[in-house]
């Protein structure tokens, strides 16, 4: 059974939820930028265009994973899990696909990342379908324009939301007073993206263009500023580091923080040898990891077509343009 919620009732619904959960909504911060933040009555931003994704609640920029305390008999190692009960409202389809890609690596693939899966298990997702294409998005090409794996899916329809619960847990948090049952068909959430990417044999073709001059041409503009990897909803590469707690005697903690393949230090080993010293090789690593390597290893794309890296790039490097021109080169060369 599907439901309808009037837009006026959204705030009361979220307020109700925040009694039991930490409710996360997209809203403007003090500088007018839309970010995902804890709901405390502020206006929820329903615009499609936004740079931030809810990645920080699953792969935070800095996350404590272990505490080490020196006791008489030796060190005590304790893992630190985030078990906050959370509801994320307004996660877009591309970001739900991004979580699927991360689940593949951290939950389904090799071993089990308990820190990630603890966050994932304790979070309910309320997805908000897009009804308008965003500036640089190419989710249609990547097949990520419809929400997956969310607990509830909202679609805007005039001054109300069409609500489709997907899971038992999602159905349980719908308040029967605010949500009216409906027999209507789901409104269309088909959008037409302005940017498009050729995805036929993408992983293979783009890897065949490994030595293409395009990498060098594009990397001439690259500043290695890491903006692209910061806004990317799937960029998960991390570094661990230990920190002492000063004044505590001998307590220390291990942190995991997001790193970026665009930095030289990412591949620097002892003796100062860098395996990817040039900008072009680092830019190539970013694009190939998204389009080629993940596909070969996991059978799915790591790029979800949100286009944020294109929007944020200060020198207007577009991974779609790179991918399209390399594919074109490779296919023309093969003829």
């Amino acid at each position, binding site marked *: 059974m599907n439901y309808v919620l009037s837009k006026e009732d959204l705030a009361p619904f979220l307020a109700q939820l925040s009694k039991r959960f930490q409710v996360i909504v997209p809203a403007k911060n003090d500088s007018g930028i839309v970010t995902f933040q804890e709901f405390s009555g502020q206006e929820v931003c329903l615009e499609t265009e936004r740079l931030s994704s809810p990645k920080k609640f699953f792969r935070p920029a800095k996350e404590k994973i272990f505490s080490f305390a020196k006791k008489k008999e030796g060190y005590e190692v304790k893992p630190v899990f985030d078990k906050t009960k959370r509801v994320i409202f307004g996660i877009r389809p591309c970001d739900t696909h991004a979580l699927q890609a991360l689940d593949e690596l951290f939950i389904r693939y090799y071993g089990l990342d308990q820190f990630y899966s603890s966050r994932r298990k304790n979070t309910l997702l309320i997805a908000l379908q897009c009804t308008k294409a965003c500036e640089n998005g190419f989710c249609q090409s990547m097949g990520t324009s419809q929400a997956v794996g969310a607990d509830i899916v909202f679609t805007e329809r005039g001054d109300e939301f069409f609500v489709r619960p997907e899971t038992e847990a999602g159905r349980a948090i719908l308040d029967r007073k605010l949500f009216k049952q409906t027999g209507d068909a789901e409104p269309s959430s088909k959008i037409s993206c302005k940017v498009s990417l050729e995805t036929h044999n993408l992983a293979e073709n783009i890897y065949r263009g490994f030595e293409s001059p395009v990498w060098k041409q594009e990397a001439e503009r690259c500043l290695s500023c890491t903006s692209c990897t910061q806004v990317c909803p799937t960029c998960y590469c991390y570094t661990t580091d230990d920190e002492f707690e000063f004044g505590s005697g001998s307590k220390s903690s291990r942190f995991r923080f997001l*790193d970026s393949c665009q930095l030289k230090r990412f591949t620097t080993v002892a003796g100062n040898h860098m395996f990817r010293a040039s900008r072009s090789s680092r830019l190539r690593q970013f694009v190939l990891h998204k389009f080629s390597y993940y596909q070969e290893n996991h059978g799915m794309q790591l790029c979800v077509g949100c286009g944020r890296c294109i929007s944020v790039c200060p020198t207007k490097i577009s991974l779609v343009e790179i991918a399209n021109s390399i594919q074109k080169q490779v296919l023309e060369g093969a003829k």
Partner: protein
Amino acid sequence: MITPEKPELAEVLEVKQETSDTKTFTVRFENPKRQKKFFFVPGKFMMVTIFGFGEIPLSISSSPYKTGFMSFTVVNVGNVTNAMHSLKKGDQLGLRGPFGNGFPMQRFRKKNILFVCGGCGIAPLRSAIYAVREKKEEFGKVELMFGCKNPQSILFSQEMDQWGKQGISVQTTVDKPSPKWAGNIGVVTSLFKNSVLSPENTVALLCGPPVMIHFALIELRKKGFKDRQMFASLERMMQCGVGYCSHCNIGNRYACIDGPIFNAAELKELPVKEE
């Protein structure tokens, strides 16, 4: 609940100063059951935690047949190794592992083995040398070619004398000789002309700096080695050991779970030399 990132407690049994900047640490898990079950193949590595300083990948340099302990041979080059060098007997550290694929030793039976290493690249190969020495009858002739910066930085020189007596032909070369040095001068590939092993029935095991591996493979090919006969242990930045952190990504492979040992045929397929 399995947490692959969780370090297990271990204690330092012995610290041995090898050269001015290199020490060998002999350690074992504090949990006797864990140590008893601990098993590794030469070439595998451990993630070693120095509490409060961080975690680094280190190859095991001891024999896989000695089960009560394991050794790491560590050069003091960075933040964590510097902290590690201050450890004494009885101090605690954290261990995870073993990780990586290791050398496929069972495939080397009845074959001659040529070890080629540079500097502290001898650490993982020392483990393989012990494995070969332990089951001498299963392998053919063994040669070790070892390149170092200078005579003072030659690791395990006493052990090498012993290996020499046990039938392993050991040859060393240095880049910068001291006045007393009577041995070979030059890069490790300059020793290849002395090898008596015929390439058809020999495997080459390599570990060293990227530039050494690059040129050693070229020279060995010239001698007639086929790509599937050459195995190199690659060095990469690593943070997790389980394929999560992506620091050791080479093409679509990971040095931590697909490597760090790759044969030269695999290396040809991978963008090892990216610049």
